[in-house]
């Protein structure tokens, strides 16, 4: 039985968090579909709240403390990412953006990413298309066509579950057969000095 690693990045702040709940439901839907294909799913859920101080420290010092480094490596090494944020001031939250600001800008290149957001009202639903999708397009991720937005009133509605299943199915379809590839290492293709000298 093959196995797939899915990283769920959630920027919910309260505990319990509806943003975390949406991430869990998306991960469960992905797991169910993959189980039907006799593929094991290893889900790692990253609560950015736990790394808020480390994210600030990384921004200020230029290096990640050990716990954050491990999380960045988990996301970089995942086969797919589910990214979930609450909607703050018509966009993703600052904490959510901080994580993707310090993640290597090639870490998501070619990687399937399912985008999802929560909000107090349905009126913010286009935050997925106007804020999240451009961010992940910039990071060269393969963004799942269906994003999932859940207002408070959506939880418990069957339409949300249909949308979750559709998005999960699209993510699984994008997984393809190839495992996640490692980032380019600048030490691997060192230019010999004679070549540097000749410009």
């Amino acid at each position, binding site marked *: 039985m093959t196995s797939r690693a899915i990283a769920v990045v959630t920027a919910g702040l309260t505990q319990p968090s509806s943003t975390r709940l949406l991430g869990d439901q998306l991960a469960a839907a992905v797991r169910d579909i993959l189980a039907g294909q006799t593929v094991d799913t290893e889900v790692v859920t990253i609560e950015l709240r736990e790394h808020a101080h480390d994210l600030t420290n990384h921004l*200020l010092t230029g290096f990640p403390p*050990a716990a954050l480094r491990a999380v960045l490596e988990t996301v970089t090494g995942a086969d797919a990412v589910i990214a979930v944020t609450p909607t703050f001031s018509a966009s993703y939250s600052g904490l959510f953006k901080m994580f993707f600001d310090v993640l290597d800008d090639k870490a998501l290149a070619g990687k399937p990413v399912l985008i999802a957001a929560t909000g107090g009202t349905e009126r913010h639903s286009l935050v997925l298309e106007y804020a999240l999708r451009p961010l992940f397009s910039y990071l060269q991720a393969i963004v799942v066509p269906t994003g999932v937005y859940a207002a408070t009133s959506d939880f418990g509605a069957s339409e949300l579950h249909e949308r979750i299943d559709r998005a999960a199915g699209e993510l699984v379809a994008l997984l393809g057969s190839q495992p996640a590839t490692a980032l380019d290492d600048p030490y691997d293709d060192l230019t010999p000095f004679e070549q540097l000298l000749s410009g």
Partner: protein
Amino acid sequence: MQFGIFTVGDVTPDPTTGRTPTEAERIKAMVTIALKAEEVGLDVFATGEHHNPPFVPSSPTTMLGYIAARTQKLILSTATTLITTNDPVKLAEDYAMLQHLADGRVDLMMGRGNTGPVYPWFGQDIRQGIPLAIENYALLRKLWREDVVDWEGKFRTPLQGFTSTPRPLDGVPPFVWHGSIRSPEIAEQAAYYGDGFFANHIFWPKEHFQRLVGLYRQRFEHYGHGSADQAIVGLGGQVFMRKSSQDAVDEFRPYFDNAPVYGHGPSLEEFTADTPLTVGSPQEVIEKTLTFRDTFGDYQRQLFLVDHAGLPLKSVLEQLDFLGEIVPVLRRELDAKRPAHVPDAPTHASLLAASSGPSNSVEVAR
């Protein structure tokens, strides 16, 4: 093994008093610190080169020349000399002049600097940072090693029959280190020439710098200058000492919390765990510094940063007194561990002896 201090030359308010020293006070303080370094038995004083506030040392050879006149043994160096934006012709002249005035007590550390806007101030383009570092340094070497130079490159006007004066003291150019915190190309450059490589690893975890130093050592051997463990490595360090560890932590914490570079971020305890910073008793500094050898192998030069973040001159001079106590211990411990085939850092005397000896093995003709 050489021990010394390096200074950024920042003018930073003392966070405990709110007072900012004047430029004159800071410049004179840097000189006082250098003189004290010699007095307590350190080997090296290195000054940064910056061309923007809040830094004062824009003219390193002016300062080092003045210090040379007031010291006898201290090696005068830089941390770093901007090989990208300084004209290599002027560097060749300035540092040869300093060599004569200081009786050879001069070496340099080349760097690309960390301030993007400095490039256009000196007519250069930051996008050409690495090519500038490569071409300018190649020309600098030529100007020091050939009496009459014909040269043409990409970044400055050609030279025809040019002689840089004065010629290097005794015909021996200053030893050169290359400082880098992230560029494999610079480690490669240092290795190619058999120059020294300085890893200022004080702000980041050691794993990052292990790869850079490892690459330099491996390529040093590749280019035939000796075995990897004979490569010439320098390391940074950052310390604050009091007799009792708790006194050191209490006194340094406000400076740490407000420091440029890492202030307002991680706690003193977190940063101490992740980087070479040591705040504590002299014994703790000895123990932490000895771990650098375990991480990077036997090395030749250890420079400490002691005068930044607004620390008052009095505290800095007290740090130098502590360094005067611990350096003999570090010297003894590290010398005892170093195998006989691992050389000391080159000095003017050793380079002169090598150049007049029969084998002429130090200066590979390049």
